[in-house]
């Protein structure tokens, strides 16, 4: 029961709901592509996208209408993804510390090429490149994706990742270097073919 004195005020007005739906329609396909490459898994990408849009809707009154919606959404999405990666890493470390007592030889570090999620991406993306992207530290991967796949300028990336332009520049450079090293090491023939 909602009282007469106190009532729940919905997060955004009717007019803003219509605007949100319009922005959703315009942005979701592109955002899905980015989420797939971030996660390496289309199913996880859908969950991430859902989380990002729900958060965006919840805080829609904080969205500055003069800026591109996609940039704001990507900021929310990258934050949500980094949070989830850190959470997984904490769980993994916890699992590792427990396994050292129980089964020290049984612990298996994640190999992007061996995971079932990776297999789901095989048909949609170039497998070697995607595996290389997944092998990068998350901040490097996001910076490279935002620059190369989304084609964003360093200034926009710095706003999305909430860091300095210098850090963005360094992350992109190191990310590309590591990606190249990965490709050369894992599949030198294919890399040579790709570079020819």
């Amino acid at each position, binding site marked *: *029961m*909602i*009282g*007469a*004195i*106190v*009532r*729940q*005020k*919905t*997060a955004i007005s009717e007019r803003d709901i219509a605007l*949100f*739906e319009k922005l*959703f*329609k315009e942005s*979701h*396909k*592109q955002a*899905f*592509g980015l989420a*797939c*490459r971030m996660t390496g898994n*289309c199913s996880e*990408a*859908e969950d991430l*996208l*859902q989380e990002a*849009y*729900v958060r965006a*809707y*919840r805080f829609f009154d904080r969205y500055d209408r003069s800026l591109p919606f996609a940039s704001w959404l990507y900021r929310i999405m990258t934050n949500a993804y980094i949070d989830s990666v850190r959470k997984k890493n904490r769980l993994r470390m916890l699992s590792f510390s427990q396994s050292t007592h129980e089964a020290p030889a049984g612990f298996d570090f994640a190999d992007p090429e061996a995971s079932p999620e990776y297999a789901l*991406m095989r048909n*949609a*993306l*170039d497998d070697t*490149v995607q595996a290389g992207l997944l092998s990068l530290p998350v901040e490097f991967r996001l910076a*490279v*994706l935002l*620059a*190369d*796949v989304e*084609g964003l*300028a*360093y200034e926009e990336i710095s706003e999305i990742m909430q860091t300095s332009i210098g850090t963005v*520049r360094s992350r*992109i*450079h190191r990310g*590309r270097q590591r*990606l*190249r090293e990965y490709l050369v090491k894992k599949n030198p023939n294919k890399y040579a073919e*790709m*570079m020819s």
Partner: protein
Amino acid sequence: MSCRKIRTMMSAYVDEELTGVEMMEVRSHAYSCRNCGHELEEMARLKRLLSEMPPPEPSEFMAEKIMASVRASDHVVHPRLQVRWTVLAGGVAAIAAGYAIATVYRTTADPMQTVDRIEPTIDLRQDRAYAVGGDPFAGAPMVVPVSR
């Protein structure tokens, strides 16, 4: 400029994020240094390779599913309570009036009996509101939910 310094600038060069002078320095160095020239070319091809990766297509129902979640979240997101001050003031006034009338009545009916004074207050709990005051007859605390 050294090869090492030039190589740190290569990514920014292919992204066209250097100043005009820096762009010229990198280009000039890459032209005269075979190794750096080769590396710069690879960096540019890698960028092109990533930008040309085909975008994955979402499933047919994804958009519908996400918007349904968004709409559903509207009812569970942290409610921002908005007090309807006119109704609130009415509740306070009603309790105060009742208290005053009852006090007068009690005083008239039995001038020897005193009534403990409990100031009416308002207690907001979650999405409900209560007017809290004192029962002028028994002196016990009185809680009146104020609702639609």
